[in-house]
């Protein structure tokens, strides 16, 4: 008996050490110089916490070995094989698995005899958060990998949305069920129904949220998976779970807020309203004519430019144009042109999406600038090249009060001397708002696939 108590003391001490390493690790992960070390440190913390837990096991070792080895193999294979362009959906998928693990932990705890009322409530909350994280992340995965095309307004989506709203009173019911069992009507096998309803609710939570709002959803699901782990820690009376889970919850929350701010919208507006009803329809006043150009003309202008700002968006990811963009940037620099990349925080489908793509293409990260860095000196830029970005460069955000995106911080490319917009067609961006940038005096439209268009410019430079 004394021996067992000793083991517990040792475990708790190692848990505290692990917690400190997690805290330092995530702090270091937030700074460029120390990020790699931070990741190692947090992996070490994870290893220590897992290893020391193995001192006292109730489950059959074979089950544990099978689970860890198989899971480790699958996880490593996915992580090594995945293309860097598929990172957003990969993160969503891993996140979902974390949520599923907490969901199963809480389920297992429910089956334990002698749960107190408080434990029962915790079990239900953990199941709810974990379940929503899991199925919500799967939907996010489907949307990001473009396997799932259902959006807002379809019949199926509406059914799932209803289930999401239904799940909230259901959660209250299952939490109070044991304490009020004499007063409220009995629902047979309510627990199984609740399990299913929770998973459906996660689908209904994420399904109606559109592509451009994905960065916010991903950050929020990330935060939820941490909170679920922290709740599981309360349930199992384990402090390292609580600390690590809370850290993840907090970091996800911060990213969510950063993303929402970058869109000048509140989180509730993004999650429950969407763009369509967040303002009256955009003004359809006379916009003027667009001025298309060819790659040849674009090349001639670029050749004489002394400073160029590249502003990428989701379109660059779709066209897989990051490598030709880097090549063009290098050729421009050889030609004596100053090249910078203007990165908007919500460009793409996850926080920092453009940074990852450009890093994959070997663009040095000191060339990447945030909107606040480039906007003040925009009028000295000779050519701003907008590649598949739309809403993040829409001047309506600064000029047109009443526009749904009014007030959103943008990259003000319309102040540059010349703007090239690379675009497939004249369709509007995710927000569904017409972009007056396309009709400005200094804007030239280069229609077609971004990869091809830039490829042609690169070829011209090489000649």
């Amino acid at each position: 008996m004394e021996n067992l108590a000793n083991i517990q003391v040792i475990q708790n001490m190692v848990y505290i050490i692990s917690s400190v390493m997690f805290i330092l690790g995530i702090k270091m992960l937030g700074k460029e110089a120390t990020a790699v070390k931070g990741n190692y440190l947090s992996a070490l913390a994870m290893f220590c916490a897992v290893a020391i837990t193995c001192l006292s096991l109730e489950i059959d070792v074979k089950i544990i070995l099978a689970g860890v080895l198989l899971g480790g193999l699958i996880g490593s294979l996915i992580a090594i094989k995945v293309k860097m362009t598929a990172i957003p959906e990969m993160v969503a998928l891993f996140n979902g698995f974390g949520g599923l693990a907490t969901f199963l932990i809480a389920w297992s705890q429910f089956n334990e005899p002698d749960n107190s009322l408080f434990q029962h409530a915790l079990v239900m909350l953990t199941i709810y958060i974990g379940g929503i994280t899991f199925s919500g992340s799967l939907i996010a995965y489907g949307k990001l990998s473009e396997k799932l095309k259902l959006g807002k307004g379809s019949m199926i989506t509406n059914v799932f949305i209803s289930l999401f709203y239904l799940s909230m009173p259901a959660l209250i019911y299952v939490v109070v069920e044991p304490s009020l069992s004499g007063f409220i009507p009995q629902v047979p096998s309510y627990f199984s129904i609740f399990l299913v309803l929770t998973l459906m609710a996660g689908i209904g939570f994420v399904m109606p949220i559109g592509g451009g709002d994905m960065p916010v959803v991903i950050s929020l699901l990330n935060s939820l998976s941490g909170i679920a782990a922290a709740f599981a820690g309360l349930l199992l009376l384990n402090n390292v779970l609580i600390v690590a889970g809370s850290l993840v919850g907090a970091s996800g929350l911060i990213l969510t807020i950063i993303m929402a701010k970058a869109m000048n919208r509140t989180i509730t507006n993004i999650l429950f309203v969407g763009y369509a009803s967040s303002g009256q329809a955009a003004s359809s006043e006379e916009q003027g004519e667009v001025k298309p150009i060819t790659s040849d003309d674009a090349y001639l202008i670029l050749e004489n430019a002394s400073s160029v700002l590249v502003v990428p968006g989701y379109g660059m990811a779709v066209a897989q144009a990051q490598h030709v963009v880097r090549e063009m940037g290098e050729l421009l620099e050889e030609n004596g042109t100053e090249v910078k990349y203007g990165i908007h925080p919500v460009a793409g489908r996850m926080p920092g999406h453009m940074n990852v793509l450009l890093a994959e293409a070997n663009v040095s990260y000191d060339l990447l600038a945030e909107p606040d860095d480039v906007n003040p000196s925009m009028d000295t830029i000779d050519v701003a090249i907008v590649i598949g970005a739309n809403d993040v460069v829409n001047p309506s955000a600064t000029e047109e009060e009443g526009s749904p995106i009014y007030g959103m911080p943008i990259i003000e490319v319309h102040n540059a001397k010349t703007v090239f917009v690379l675009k497939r067609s004249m369709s509007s961006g995710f927000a569904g708002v017409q972009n007056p940038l396309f009709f400005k005096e200094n804007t030239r439209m280069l229609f077609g696939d971004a990869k091809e268009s830039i490829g042609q410019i690169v070829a011209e430079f090489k000649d």
Partner: protein
Amino acid sequence: MEMYVLLGFVLLLSIFLGLELISKVPSTLHTPLMSGANAISGIALVGALMLSSAGQMQDILAFGAILFASINVFGGYLVTNRMLSMFKKK
């Protein structure tokens, strides 16, 4: 119940600590931070290892929890590391 009050205290302090630690992150690191945090949420693996074993159902649940948490941990750290190794200054 005293235990829960204490752990609830730990929970709240950790959240505030987290918010203070990462309030300003350069946008270059948004994705690695998210992915790294995601790997940490695989700490659920520790929880999964603490489950009890009583009957087939519990074993299946424990196996599932260990499996998925392991995918999260291994995949998360490896992807983060791969991503970070791409960010370099020239």
